């Protein structure tokens, strides 16, 4: 659980760094996509990543189900103020929201890019996809809901993972919890910046024209 969680948190950093290249230019973004498509290490890591997700999800289901049997008779009154964070009590629900978006994400990006490569066909232009999807307000909203769920999941998960593998003590506990918040905020803001940049860019600053021109040149 903790090891797969730590691994997924490293993956998030790599993923969001690549996303951020789209803020600079379409060229940089397409180059980053090209790199991910061809680099050997990346090809090796893809199945490892899939495995990481599967291990994390299976463990989470086992732990959640097992823990549900530990209190067969529930309390009539539960005081919500008991000092545990909301996120820590709802990790499974948050995980499921993250997973739901992952499905959507696969459908919209992976199926149009990576899957096409696997099938031996030309994939969709990655930058075009961004414009197409993020020009729709409801897709932006969904994306932001997902990122917020992710924020809560990792703001607890980050320090929790260290605690679970025993790398913690009374001095580091508060420090790790602050680092967890910082990590979660940075990753979250980085993810959210993409839909915001594109949505407002397209609808208010004529970004679309510029991009279509670029893409036409590029392809």
């Amino acid at each position, binding site marked *: 659980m903790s090891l797969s969680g730590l691994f997924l948190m490293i993956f998030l950093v790599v993923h969001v760094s690549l996303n951020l290249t789209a803020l600079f230019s379409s060229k940089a973004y397409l180059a980053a996509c090209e790199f991910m498509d061809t680099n050997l290490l990346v090809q090796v890591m893809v199945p490892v990543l899939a495995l990481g997700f599967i291990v994390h999800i299976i463990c989470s289901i086992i732990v959640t189900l*097992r*823990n549900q049997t530990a*209190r067969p008779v529930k309390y*009539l*009154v539960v*005081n919500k103020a008991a000092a545990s964070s909301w996120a*820590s009590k709802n990790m499974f629900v948050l995980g499921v929201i993250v997973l739901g978006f992952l499905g959507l994400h696969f459908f919209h990006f992976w199926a149009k890019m990576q899957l096409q490569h696997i099938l031996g066909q030309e994939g969709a232009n990655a930058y075009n996809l961004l414009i197409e999807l993020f020009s729709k307000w409801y897709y932006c909203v969904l994306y932001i809901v997902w990122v917020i769920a992710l924020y809560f999941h990792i703001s607890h998960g980050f320090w929790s993972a260290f*605690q679970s593998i025993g790398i913690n003590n*009374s001095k580091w*506990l508060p420090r790790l919890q602050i680092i967890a918040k910082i990590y979660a905020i940075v990753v979250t803001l980085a993810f959210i910046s993409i839909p915001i940049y594109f949505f407002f860019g397209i609808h208010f600053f004529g970004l679309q024209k510029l991009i279509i021109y670029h893409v036409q040149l590029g392809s």
Partner: protein
Amino acid sequence: MKFKLKIWRQKNAKAKGYFEDFDVDNISPDTSFLEMLDILNNNLISAGKEPVAFDHDCREGICGMCSLYINGRAHGPDEDITTCQLHMRKFKDGDLITVEPWRSAAFPVVKDLVVNRNAFDQILQAGGFVSVNTGGVPDGNTIPISKLDADEAMDASACIGCGACVATCKNGSAMLFVAARVSALAKLPQGKVEAQQRAKAMVAKMDELGFGSCTNTQACQAECPKGISIAHIARLNREFLCAKLKD
């Protein structure tokens, strides 16, 4: 003061339980919570009714016998205390007070508010002791132990085995209790030798008895009457993982 009480009644371990409502009157604010229950029981006995069964012993916060989930919190609405140290001045006149037993698959209800916490004894029997030969009683201070280590072992030893951690944890996990024991012994030279094996044996017993798994929600340390920190759980995890890696 006057209170309305809603108390869990259950004839025995097998019977189906239910909530029963009571009224108590003429309670001084300085009455302890258990004394208030004594007054209620006195009234019940005079009226020829069955008194409410609840656990208690020292009534000074050191034995861990008293329990009770009061208005949704283990040991009621005060910090770092047991139920015997809770006073009625912490409530408002006329309050409705709901009293439930600890709820955990591993702590079955014996009668009314009394639960069987024998599972904790079984966990201790699985490894919460020192079995290496430590020789005769040495003179004081002949074994050098740093102040920091001694303090940490002492903090962990403060656990009174009350079970509030299990009662509060949404997963019904006994990790704080196990961690307190493992930490108290691992920090001292005699206990250190078996620290890893002890962690493994105690965790295995905890799982076997039907306690849940820790997901680091921190609810236990918030409700522990002795303020045991979850930092001890990190140490337990460390010892446990080291033991597993060596297998």
